[in-house]
C-alpha cells in the first residue's frame, strides 16, 4: 500500500481531472489482479482487472474520502464482480483441492495422513462452496487475502461485528460440514 495515503487526494482530484485516476491503477493493479486470480484463475481475472478499475472510475464520486487507501474499495468492487463467476470459482476451488490433496499426499507418502488428505481437501472445497455468499466472501478475504477483520469489514462495507459473526458462522459451518457426526473428519462419512 505504498502511497496509499494519497489515494483519497488523487480520487478527489480526478473529479475535475479524470486522467488523474490513472494513478489509482498504477498503485494497486497487482494486488487486485492476484486477488481475482486466486478466485477465478488467470484468464478471467485478466479480463476483469480493467473492469474493476473502470467501474471504480465511474463511481469515483461515491468514494469515501475519509479512507486513505482505495484498496479496500477496489477489493469490494472485485468481490461483487466475482459473484457473476460463481461456477468458474467453484471449478477452480475443486481443482485446487485436488492439487492440495495430491501434494499433501506426496508429502506424507506411506503414512495414514495421505488418505486423509485425499478425502479431506475436496470436502473442504465443497464445504466452502456450500457457505452462504456473505460468509464465503468474508472467509476468503480473511483467509486468502490475509486481511484483518477490520480490513475485511472495510472491503464488504459492513460493521466489524457483522464480519466477526459471519466469520464465526463460516467456521461453525465448515466444522459441521467437515465433521457431521462430530467424529473424526474422514471416517465419519
Amino acid at each position, binding site marked *: 500500500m505504498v502511497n496509499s495515503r494519497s489515494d483519497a487526494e488523487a480520487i478527489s482530484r480526478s473529479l475535475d481531472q479524470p486522467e488523474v485516476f490513472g494513478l489509482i491503477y498504477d498503485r494497486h493493479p497487482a494486488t487486485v489482479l492476484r486477488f481475482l486470480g486466486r478466485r477465478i484463475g488467470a484468464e478471467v481475472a485478466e479480463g476483469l482487472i480493467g473492469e474493476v478499475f473502470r467501474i471504480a472510475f465511474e463511481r469515483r464520486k461515491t468514494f469515501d474520502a475519509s479512507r486513505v487507501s482505495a484498496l479496500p474499495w477496489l477489493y469490494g468492487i472485485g468481490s461483487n464482480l466475482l459473484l457473476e463467476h460463481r461456477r468458474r470459482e467453484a471449478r477452480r476451488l475443486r481443482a485446487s483441492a485436488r492439487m492440495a490433496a495430491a501434494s499433501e499426499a506426496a508429502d506424507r507418502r506411506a503414512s495414514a495422513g495421505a488418505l486423509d488428505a485425499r478425502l479431506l*481437501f475436496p470436502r473442504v472445497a465443497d464445504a466452502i462452496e456450500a457457505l452462504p455468499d456473505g460468509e464465503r466472501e468474508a472467509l476468503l478475504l480473511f483467509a486468502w487475502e490475509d486481511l484483518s477483520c477490520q480490513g475485511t469489514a472495510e472491503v464488504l462495507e459492513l460493521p466489524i461485528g457483522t464480519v466477526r459473526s459471519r466469520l464465526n458462522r463460516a467456521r461453525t459451518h465448515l466444522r459441521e460440514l467437515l465433521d457431521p457426526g462430530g467424529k473424526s473428519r474422514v471416517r465419519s462419512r
Partner: protein
Amino acid sequence: MKPVDLARKLRREAAFEPAALDRGKAVLMAAIRQEIEPTRGQTIVPQVPYKNVSAALSFLERAFGFREIPTARLVSADGGIDHAMLGFGGGMIGIGPQGHHGTISPKSGGIESQYISVYVDDVDAHYQRAVAAGARIANGLRNYFWSDEGHRTYEALDPEGHLSRFHQQIRS
C-alpha cells in the same frame, strides 16, 4: 486443523501473462478518454494552426486560462506536439502545426482570416490575466448594448497573431 487454516490450504496463485496489467490499464484509460472525449457534445471545434505549437499551448493556458486535455495530445515521432485540445468552460479548440490540412499561422501568412469568440464570467479579471501574461491587446475593454442587455468585451492577440475576442454578458 482449524477451519480457516484448512481454507488457506486451498489458496492457489494464478500465473498471469506479463501484459495483463497493461491491458487492464488500457481498459481504464479508454473509459477515462471517453469521459473527456473532446468531441462528445462538442459539434464544432475550431482548429488553429501555429508555427510553435508548444509555445502557443503554454501561452493559451497562462494568458487565457484554457486547459489542455492531456489524454487528447498527439505527439509526433520527433517528440513535438502534433495536435492538442484545449478546453475552456463548455468550449474547445484544437491546435496543431501550420501546414497540416493546408492551414497557416498569421505569423507566416501575415493575415488572420477568422477570430475566436470566447464567453467568460468575469471579463475584467480575464483581461488582467491576459495582460499580465504578455498578451497583445488589439482592442481594450468596452461595453456594447443593443437593448438593456449587452456585452463587455476586449480583443487580444496570441504570440502568432490569432485574434480572440472575450465577452461577458452584461445588463445596463
